[in-house]
């Protein structure tokens, strides 16, 4: 299969079950809302070293924020509900609550919840107040610019993490252009985020290492400077590889994001699109590239 002259390899991405949450972060203007949301989702590229994977997203078309102010969605993914509660407490407490004019609401209709505002409220030192509106409890925590409004609980759902695809290109310039186009297309997919910086991974990894105690190392078969020193997965003419990892609140969201990203990445200078997997026996979710592009 080829799109715009770019080969779509007959392979699949292997992804895993995770827990996902979606916060709506608002502010007096969109800039402040983004500042708060980006601070809360920073240092959240990989579950391995960051505790969670997170990113921001625009609100769905026509979606209103609970307070009517400008807002941004922040999606967080992690391995367990318990860890999700811990991550949200930290991130909302340290990065959203601290941001001027911010407020934070649950953006996911889910039966399972974790308590966030219900714990952060104690920052109010006894002066916090709650309001029950439409079955949602909002906490008003007194802060120096007025009040920080935060919802008592946030919904969590079983989600999907680790959708991915690789872009092989003749030059870094071409790979970057493809990656940026892919990320721009994927950002329009609600319910999915790309947790790495700018949505792109330059240091993809393999699950082995020559060093004792280290479990991952650079994805050396895909490192162009090592061609000739060890077995390479690169073909002649391929001088750079970038990867995009995507997490989503549903399998459908990840699939749609991958489809949109791959289609946008098929630009001049890109030789092929591939994906990472572990043989198919570890992850519950398989995203076959050619099937995605056929839909």
């Amino acid at each position, binding site marked *: 299969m080829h799109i715009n002259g770019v080969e779509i390899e007959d392979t699949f991405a292997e992804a895993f079950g995770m827990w996902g949450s979606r916060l709506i972060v608002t502010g007096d203007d969109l800039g402040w809302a983004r500042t708060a949301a980006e601070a809360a989702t920073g240092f959240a590229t990989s579950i391995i070293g960051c505790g969670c994977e997170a990113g921001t997203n625009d609100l769905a078309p026509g979606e*209103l924020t609970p307070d009517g102010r400008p807002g941004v969605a922040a999606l967080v993914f992690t391995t367990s509900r318990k860890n999700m509660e811990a991550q949200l407490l930290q991130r909302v407490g340290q990065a959203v609550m601290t941001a001027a004019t911010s407020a934070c609401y649950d953006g996911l209709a889910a039966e399972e919840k974790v308590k966030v505002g219900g714990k952060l409220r104690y920052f109010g030192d006894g002066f916090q*107040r709650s*309001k029950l*509106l439409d079955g949602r409890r*909002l906490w008003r925590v007194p802060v120096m610019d007025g*009040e920080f409004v935060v919802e008592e609980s946030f919904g969590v759902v079983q989600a999907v993490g680790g959708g991915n695809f690789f872009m092989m290109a003749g030059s870094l310039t071409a790979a970057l252009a493809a990656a940026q186009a892919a990320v721009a297309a994927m950002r329009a997919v609600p319910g999915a985020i790309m947790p790495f910086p700018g949505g792109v991974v330059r240091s993809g990894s393999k699950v082995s290492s020559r060093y004792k105690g280290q479990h991952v190392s650079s994805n050396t078969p895909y490192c162009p400077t090592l061609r000739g020193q060890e077995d390479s997965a690169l073909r002649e003419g391929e001088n750079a590889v970038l990867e995009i990892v995507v997490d989503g609140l549903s399998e459908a969201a990840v699939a749609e994001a991958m489809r949109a990203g791959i289609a946008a990445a098929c630009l001049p200078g890109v030789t092929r699109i591939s994906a990472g997997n572990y043989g198919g026996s570890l992850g519950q979710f398989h995203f076959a590239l050619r099937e995605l592009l056929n839909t």
Partner: protein
Amino acid sequence: MGCIACAALVLDGAGVTLTRRESSSIPVEADSLCPDRFVGLGPTEIAALPVFYGRRKVELGDLFEVEGAGADNVIVSGDLKAVKKIGQGMSMGRLTVTGDVGPHLGAYMSGGEIVVQGDAGDWVGAHMSGGRIVVQGDAGHFVGAAYSGETRGVRGGTIIVGGNAGREVGARMRRGLIVVLGDTGEFAGAGMLAGSVFVGGRLGGRPGAGMKRGTIVAFGEAPELLPTFRYACSYRPVFLRCYLQSLEASGLIESPGLSDGEFRRYVGDMNSGGRGEVLVRDQSQ
């Protein structure tokens, strides 16, 4: 403040229609006039439900012409100014009154919706714990208040009055929302334990007297507050925008331009712990 949209009145479709046969000032205690009591009943059985007409026990059918079946949609028409306790204790369905109605409308209600196209008497929604009451016209005294001798009143639900209301709106309220688009009488929110009272017109004197917690919001004129209230600050309350957003989304109230307002916050009543608040819209903004 705005106007009640009330676009969703359902006057057609399956349901029960009760039409008062004749006008009278003799009080009627009509707590059986409630959707919950009509479940599974046809018009003949509904007409046989008991009511008090003065001190005489009669049947609903003696006072009302009853047609239709189905408890989900009940429409009541005619001279109801002396008819008390309509919708008392209801937990489901929709009850529409096409004119004025007497006191104790929706008292102890826990669910469903009551819509009154005219005025309502005293004690609208007393002790309600859920559901919604919309009065398009004026309401009497004690809207959403606790009965005399009771320490706690409304525990939930929403009451919206399109016109004016009398005194002691939300007295001893524990939770829930009361919105009066017009003026209120004295002592709104007296003894409030929690919950919210919004007043679009002129807030009557001595609001929040004895309030422990809770919120009174004056979108229009406000009186001088009791000396046991202290000014805190002027600010833009974000939580208030959540309420207005919710009310707008419900289609019940149109409230343009309110969301960006600055409010002066007063805390009190210091005689009762000082954890209540009265927010007064800064009219100069």
